[in-house]
């Protein structure tokens, strides 16, 4: 099976064995049905064990799976009449971010998302889903347009991070990201963000200041890639697995930290196993989000976003130690 991940190998191997035995019984007179039944029971237990105890690093590998569905996969299944709009009107058209107008259950929305490629050629064109400033400026242009026409904004987050390159710095990568955080805070329309793959640092957050933030079960969201963290903290990128566990980057961890609103369940083994089922799971959560947010006034939406981010962060006060109020 293509794209088998390390942690699920025992399951796949057992499945193969059962299949082999079945073939064997077909071709000979031997009756192995009892044996097969036993193995199947074992498979069920094993699957449960493997998929219900997915380690953070396993989730990282699912989130990076080459066949993991991308923004455009979900757009074509969740929306109708999608019309892609190009360009930031300033410098270029960054294909690492796609965006446009569409209808969700017949109502107009603006959809924006990071876009990885499916093969090497497309990945080069889309810069492996790592945007330049013009990508963020295109996204902002489309958000402002959505605000003008009073339609909600849906953002799909799926990037290793903003592109670390010379040209990106020259054109103001930091300013572009910062501007998006600043402007998204004031949008007078509902903004729903969904992490569908990797949420890599500022490059992800630049599409992520929303009223609701949801994550697919096996997606990740962090301040830096596990490899990056390991190399900075321990000067050894091979300790990425350890970093993935320490940094709390999975959906369940972020839910516990109060960063995200909903965990959107995935099919066993990851979203790539059943794209339609995954789209349906997103549909359910997105619909509920937009229903809820659309009842808020413009001021209430901005206020809602303000309070959401105001609440994030943990700290204590020296006063607590010395007993002063």
């Amino acid at each position, binding site marked *: 099976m293509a794209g088998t991940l390390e942690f699920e190998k025992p399951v796949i191997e057992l499945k193969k064995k059962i299949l082999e035995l079945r073939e064997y019984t077909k071709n000979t007179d031997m009756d192995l049905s009892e044996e097969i039944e036993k193995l199947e029971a074992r498979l069920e237990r094993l699957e449960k064990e493997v998929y219900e105890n997915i380690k953070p690093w396993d989730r990282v590998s699912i989130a990076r799976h080459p066949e993991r569905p991308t923004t455009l996969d979900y757009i074509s299944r969740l929306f109708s*009449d999608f*019309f*892609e*709009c*190009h*360009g*930031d*009107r*300033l*410098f*270029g*058209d960054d294909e690492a971010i796609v965006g446009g*107008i*569409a*209808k969700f*259950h*017949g*109502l*107009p929305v603006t959809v924006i998302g990071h876009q990885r490629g499916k093969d090497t050629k497309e990945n080069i064109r889309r810069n492996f889903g790592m945007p330049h400033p*013009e990508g963020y400026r*295109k996204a902002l242009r489309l958000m402002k*347009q959505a605000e*003008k*026409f*009073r339609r*909600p904004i849906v953002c799909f987050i799926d990037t290793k991070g903003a592109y670390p390159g010379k040209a990106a710095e020259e054109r103001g990568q930091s300013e572009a990201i910062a501007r998006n955080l600043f402007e998204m805070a004031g949008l007078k329309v509902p903004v729903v963000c969904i992490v569908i793959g990797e949420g890599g640092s500022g490059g992800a957050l630049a599409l992520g200041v929303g009223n609701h933030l949801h994550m697919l079960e096996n997606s990740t969201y962090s301040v830096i890639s596990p490899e990056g963290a390991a190399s900075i903290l321990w000067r050894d990128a091979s300790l990425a697995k350890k970093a993935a566990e320490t940094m709390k980057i999975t959906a369940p961890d972020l839910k516990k930290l109060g960063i995200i609103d909903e965990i959107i369940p995935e099919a066993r083994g990851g979203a790539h196993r059943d794209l339609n089922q995954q789209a349906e799971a997103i549909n359910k959560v997105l*619909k509920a989000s*937009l*229903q809820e947010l*659309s*009842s808020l006034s413009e001021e209430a939406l901005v206020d809602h976003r303000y309070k959401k981010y105001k609440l994030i962060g943990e700290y204590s006060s020296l006063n607590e130690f010395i007993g002063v109020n």
Partner: protein
Amino acid sequence: MLKELFTKTKKKKYATIPSESAKQDVPEGIMTKCPSCKKIMYTKELVKNLKVCSHCGYHHQMNSKERINSFVDSGSFQELNREMTSGNPLNFPDYKEKLDKDRQKTNLNEAVVTGVAQISGMGVVVAIMDATFRMGSMGSVVGEKITLAIEKADELKVPFIIFTASGGARMQEGVLSLMQMAKTSVALKRFSDNGGLIISIMTHPTTGGVSASFASLGDYNFAEPGALIGFAGRRIIEQTIREELPEDFQTAEFLLKHGQLDAVLPRQELRDSIISIVEIHQPGRSISWQEL
């Protein structure tokens, strides 16, 4: 075989080659030669194909009448301010005569036609610039007619759609032409602040003061394939920077790559795409978010 060699009736070694002038001489009106692939085709068929060459996809220029016929719902177009004509504010020599000549040649009064129309039953205001009249240049009348059309769209609360084709500001009206850039932009700003939808479709050629005002101010900016779009002319830029420019410089595709356009729309897809966009922006839906 040998016999053939010695026969007296040798085959003609020459053929009649039509003269250069005869080659070019395609009967006016019946046939059209594509300037891109040089194929010759029936004009009727070309028009039927929205003036797009069926061999190479070259988009032949459309005049305002052809554009209206191909874009809006049949019979829905009601022209606005048709009677408005230019004065000669600077007493520019020969300006009046040139205008008269173009009026006769094109049967138009000015370089833009504006009107109220419907596309797929939805009300819109359209403005179509016509490059056959004074190269679609913008003087006081073009500026005023476009401004009045924008105000009409604001009044009717319908989208404003403009097809641009222009060499830029009209030299014969001097600074008055320049100020039409400001006038149309001021009108668009008010319309936009009132929530109006602006769609600009740049056709060949859209340059100078027109590209630097309303043509670039759409909520959606589109262009037809291969259209020349730019501010300064190619020759001026080459002379200024003393550098040869790339071949595709200032084409629609070049602009798309450089972030200036939402999309390049082939003429065959144009009407449907615009209808779909206008439809998404229609107010008053039968369902609401709460009822989903």
